[in-house]
């Protein structure tokens, strides 16, 4: 089995248009959630979200590209550029043949669907743009990144709702680990902040109208976000031989299915995924210094997640730090695990634990150290990133400080 390291990271989300600005916002506990701005927002009862600030599509892509790139593809390409540039890899010859792209997304080109359904149903038009299908398909972001960077190895898109990114990165990890790929570009992207995307979530009545307050007793639901994060996973010897900077090592992955309910989370399913990631990484609970929680800010997730962590970590659950950065960037659905992996890298590489902001009242059912409101300095050797999706599909990744 080969060792797998991360040699590049890129992102665009409500906290920043790149990794340095995102990590700075996380360190400062800044909130990227604000009033939503898009067409028909006045017909929504939920009017806040982690919408990206300072993004102008026309300044980033030309007319031909915009005709082909849905917003979720634009985000993925932007994050991929930062990650691949940081890695310093150039994909040619054998390296190109043995490197691919695996992304997570839940809604894919949802803005394209929303705009075109509106045109044919509401506005009664009978003709749509010829690129609607290649623009909206869930694998569009994956394919455009593979085309842009000549990535010719195993490439596909994973859709497991809120766990999509973690499932995608888990596949990439295992492909490099087993020698099937030399490097993998992986992560996730989501752009669900459009009228139809938010309207659908409203129906479930789990959204907050004012703020995302994970683990706080007065939490009242999730807040959606948008954006992408992309990483370069590379075989360790390959990275070492070329003197690449190693951000951290990926050491374990586990996925489980609750097989119980389409929306309610299960403590057992989540605990089995956490325990599975520890077993895969050959670590004990005491090794873990930080957990990036799924922490959606819903009543159900947060108490179930805390119970699952207590189950899987035993007494060590009382000392481990666990925060939810969704309080700052919102829930990116299929892209969320990727953006949250940045908080794990910050913990391991910079020794800074991102806080859970908006924490106001302790909840006896969430009695762990959730790093409330202010970032903390700490020396962390191993971190976990949790993702628990609707449909009961769980995926947990384990990371270790570079050595």
């Amino acid at each position: 089995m080969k060792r797998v390291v991360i040699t590049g990271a890129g992102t665009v989300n409500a906290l920043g248009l790149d990794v340095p600005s995102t990590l700075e916002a996380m360190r400062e506990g800044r909130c990227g959630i604000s009033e939503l701005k898009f067409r028909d927002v006045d017909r929504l009862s939920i009017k806040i979200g982690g919408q990206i600030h300072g993004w102008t599509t026309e300044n980033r892509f030309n007319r031909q590209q915009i005709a082909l790139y849905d917003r979720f593809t634009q985000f993925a390409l932007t994050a991929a550029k930062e990650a691949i540039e940081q890695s310093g890899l150039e994909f040619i010859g054998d390296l190109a043949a043995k490197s691919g792209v695996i992304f997570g997304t839940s809604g894919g080109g949802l803005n394209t669907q929303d705009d075109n359904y509106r045109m044919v149903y509401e506005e009664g038009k009978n003709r749509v743009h010829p690129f609607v299908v290649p623009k909206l398909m869930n694998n569009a972001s994956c394919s455009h990144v593979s085309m842009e960077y000549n990535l010719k190895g195993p490439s596909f898109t994973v859709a497991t709702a809120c766990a999509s990114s973690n499932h995608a990165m888990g596949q990439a990890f295992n492909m490099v680990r087993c020698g099937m790929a030399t490097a993998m570009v992986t992560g996730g992207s989501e752009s669900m902040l459009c009228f139809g995307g938010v309207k659908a979530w409203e129906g479930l009545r789990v959204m907050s109208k004012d703020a995302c307050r994970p683990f706080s007793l007065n939490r009242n639901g999730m807040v959606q976000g948008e954006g992408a994060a992309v990483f370069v996973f590379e075989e360790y010897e390959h990275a070492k031989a070329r003197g690449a900077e190693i951000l951290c090592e990926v050491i374990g992955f586990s996925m489980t299915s609750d097989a119980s309910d389409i929306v309610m989370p299960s403590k057992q399913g989540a605990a089995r995924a956490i325990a599975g990631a520890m077993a895969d990484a050959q670590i004990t609970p005491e090794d873990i210094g930080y957990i990036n929680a799924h922490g959606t800010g819903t009543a159900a997730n947060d108490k179930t997640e805390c119970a699952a962590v207590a189950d899987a970590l035993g007494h060590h659950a009382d000392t481990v730090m666990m925060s939810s950065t969704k309080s700052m960037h919102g829930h990116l659905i299929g892209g969320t695990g990727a953006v949250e992996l940045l908080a794990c890298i910050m913990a391991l590489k910079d020794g800074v634990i991102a806080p859970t902001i908006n924490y106001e009242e302790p909840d006896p059912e969430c009695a762990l150290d959730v790093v409330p409101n202010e970032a903390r300095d700490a020396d962390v050797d191993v971190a976990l990133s949790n993702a628990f999706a609707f449909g009961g599909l769980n995926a947990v990744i384990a990371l270790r400080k570079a050595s």
Partner: protein
Amino acid sequence: MSDEIKTKIIAIIAEQAVLEPSDVRDDQDLDDLGIDSLGLVECIFAIEETFDISVPFNANEPDQSDFDISSVSAIVKAVQGLIAEQSS
């Protein structure tokens, strides 16, 4: 009018509970009727559509909602209140 509202609400609840409307009693709560959290949000959706009202309900804080769901009669009363409030 009031009886008509009650009949419609009980029909909605009965459909979710897979019961005959005559088997739904005023004092029963959602647990008694075997209606889970998803069934509840479906009931609220059906009530909103039937009476053209907006029901203030967040599944994260059912107890803090102004919309009392503690029993069938409480739901009927709450819907009657919302209809009066929102039609005025």
